[in-house]
């Protein structure tokens, strides 16, 4: 690093930070320095303080987010841009051009220069729109994030901070965003917090590794960190190349116990699902059997969610929809993408019991089942908290646990692993596989190719509101082999 010392240096020395109403320091005596031009990736378990540090380094804390901090020395870059996680909450204007103009106005750029600059920034991030005056709400998540980059470019930043910008994007959006960042950041400093490192890894050169307590345990060139800290990476739930093969080796999965059945669970005939008055999904003949793990894939807006919401009768449908289960209400469960929407009580414990209470049951028996589930899903220590106070992973676990506690025979899931770190994803998938082995049918909308390829038994591709292909996966074919 000697060669870098002549460049401008930024960072904090002996940072102490405490959240209001908390007793313990969240970050204690943390020192982190960086130089202009460096491309740095922060890795560590969820909730370890990486994002908080990023906010301190960019000056958001304490200027915009009022959290008390103390430092011996802090050097914050004057011109910096920040890209946040949620594509929905980075904009304040309805149209694309107006959003970039908002940033230009803040810097008192003359009106006459604005249109050219807006076009220039949109081109830089590869957003090809028919017209710059387009509604932001018509863009996909990935395009919104690229717009966020474009509007940040208007700040002419020396340093770009990216706080898990792809956590809520699909694989295509993720790849495009990182390509964009790579092209625009040639002469810029980058500091990135990210869990999915497949694409980032190509262009960062320094990795900083945090542990559960928010301490930096390693800081150095990426090759070094990857070679020496493999087990930590896995322990912290960081997505890294090869993690799927390590966790779910293809050969091993094919050896797992396979329950085989041709009992139908769901039959659809001349089925149409509507959004408003428009038919958004249709199929003439369709069947799902007991013990299948059906993965539904396809582009954004192809009709995947419409398909499963239609199966569940959450939207207007026409045609025959026959569930071959005892009682549709009790035996078919549905999991929404955002777990928060389906919490209906004020504590984790009540949430877990809710499904059993409304179906009627002995109080003692319910209590026993709830205790078991809390232990199984590792939520015992937070049983008295409000569901909204949980971490992202805990929320997801609670929503899964509370939807399956009454043992439904079919579960529909809308991107259940979305935004989860590797550790949470794998523990959920293991849980799903156990249920499948017990005969539960899983119908899952997912963007994750690895889940489809390793765990699912059947893959359905949706395109333009229709089933484009419906085929058995390798695993599913093996199942079929056992039948005959």
């Amino acid at each position, binding site marked *: 690093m000697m060669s870098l010392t002549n460049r401008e240096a930024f960072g904090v020395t002996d940072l102490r930070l405490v959240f209001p109403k908390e007793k313990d320091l969240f970050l204690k005596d943390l020192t982190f320095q960086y130089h202009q031009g460096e491309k740095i990736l922060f890795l560590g378990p969820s909730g370890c303080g990486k994002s908080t540090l990023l906010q301190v380094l960019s000056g958001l804390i304490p200027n915009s987010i009022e959290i008390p901090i103390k430092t011996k020395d802090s050097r914050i870059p004057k011109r910096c841009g920040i890209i946040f996680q949620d594509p*929905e909450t*980075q904009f304040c204007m309805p149209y694309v051009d107006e959003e970039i103009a908002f940033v230009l106005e803040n810097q008192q750029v003359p009106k006459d220069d604005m249109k050219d600059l807006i076009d220039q920034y949109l081109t830089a991030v590869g957003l090809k729109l028919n017209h710059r005056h387009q509604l932001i709400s018509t863009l996909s998540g990935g395009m919104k994030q690229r717009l966020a980059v474009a509007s940040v470019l208007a700040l002419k930043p020396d340093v770009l901070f990216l706080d898990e910008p792809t956590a809520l994007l699909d694989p295509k959006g993720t790849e495009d965003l990182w390509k964009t960042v790579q092209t625009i950041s040639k002469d810029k400093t980058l500091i990135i917090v990210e869990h999915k490192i497949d694409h980032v890894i190509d262009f960062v050169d320094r990795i900083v590794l945090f542990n559960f307590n928010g301490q930096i345990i390693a800081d150095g060139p990426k090759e070094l960190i990857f070679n020496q800290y493999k087990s930590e990476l896995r322990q912290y739930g960081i997505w890294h190349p090869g993690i799927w093969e390590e966790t779910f080796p293809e050969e091993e999965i094919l050896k797992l116990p396979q329950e085989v059945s041709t009992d139908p669970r769901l039959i659809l005939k001349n089925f149409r699902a509507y959004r408003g008055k428009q038919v958004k999904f249709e199929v003439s003949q369709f069947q799902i059997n007991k013990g299948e793990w059906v993965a539904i894939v396809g582009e954004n807006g192809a009709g995947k969610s419409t398909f499963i919401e239609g199966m569940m009768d959450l*939207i207007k449908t026409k045609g025959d929809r026959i569930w071959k289960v005892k009682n549709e209400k009790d035996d078919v469960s549905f999991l929404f993408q955002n777990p928060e929407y389906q919490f209906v009580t004020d504590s984790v414990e009540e949430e877990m019991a809710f499904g059993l209470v409304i179906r009627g049951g002995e109080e003692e028996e319910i209590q026993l089942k709830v205790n078991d589930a809390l232990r199984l899903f590792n939520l015992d220590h937070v049983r008295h908290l409000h569901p909204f106070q949980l971490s992202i992973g805990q929320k997801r676990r609670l929503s899964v646990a509370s939807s399956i506690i009454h043992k439904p025979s079919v579960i529909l899931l809308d991107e259940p692993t979305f935004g989860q770190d590797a550790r949470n994803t794998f523990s959920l998938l293991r849980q799903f596989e156990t249920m499948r082995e017990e005969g539960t049918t899983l119908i899952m909308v997912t963007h994750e190719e690895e889940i489809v390829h390793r765990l699912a038994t059947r893959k359905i591709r949706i395109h333009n509101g229709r089933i484009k292909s419906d085929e058995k996966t390798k695993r599913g074919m093996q199942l079929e082999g056992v039948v005959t």
Partner: protein
Amino acid sequence: MNTYWNPNQKWLARVNPSLKFLTIAAIFMIYLFVHNFNVMLVSSFAFFIFYLFCNGFSKKLSFWLVAMTFILSVFSASAMVFFGKGTHMLFEWHLITISIESMTRGLHLGLRTFVYGMLGLIFASTTEPVPFFYSVMQQLRIPPKYAYSFLAAFRLIPIMIEEYRIIRAAMKVRGMSEEKGLRAFYRRMKRYAIILLAQAIRRAQRIAVAMEAKQFSMVKKRTYYYQIGFSRYDVLFTCLILLIIIGSWIFSSYVPLTPYNNVLERSY
């Protein structure tokens, strides 16, 4: 913003939004003090015609909005028509007493509601939020922090509507909508409120931080992407409004359609 509402097609969209806003607010005030039933009658008709020719809604939406305004006007009229005081009785039945005085006053109130409704719809259907807030910043010197907070809030509305749809579905899935009775209804409402508010507050906070991260500042001067000025449409708009108001006065003083020139007078 969508197919139902396309303010930009109409010439009224080019009228300076601040001027339009202040003019309509002024008419609201003026018509509070109009007690001549004939004037009210003529001008409600005139504003209705004005609305029909100049609104920016689709025909279908426009029909329903006018129908709703009409129903609202009938309601506000009925309160006075049925229960107002008066000496010339037309109809009496238990509590309901209709006199000529209460009838005219009631209809007068109803027409006033109708005029206000038409004006409100004219404004809403031809004014987009962005030009409106740019204009109030530029012409009325409203500080940008208020204008941009409103604009940011507008973005949250469709998100909240979609969220409401999902929560309703989620409640159905969890079995919440099975429960009947007042307590269950209260519990459901509480759930909607908690979830929608929690999400909205978090979003609002994130947007605020993102805006500050983009160097939005409460104090600094700023330039404007849109310069909202005045044009011949402003003259046209002002003239038309004046024509309607003055015209309906003159018309009713020459051709009084009814004998009720002052609804506040006790007897005729």
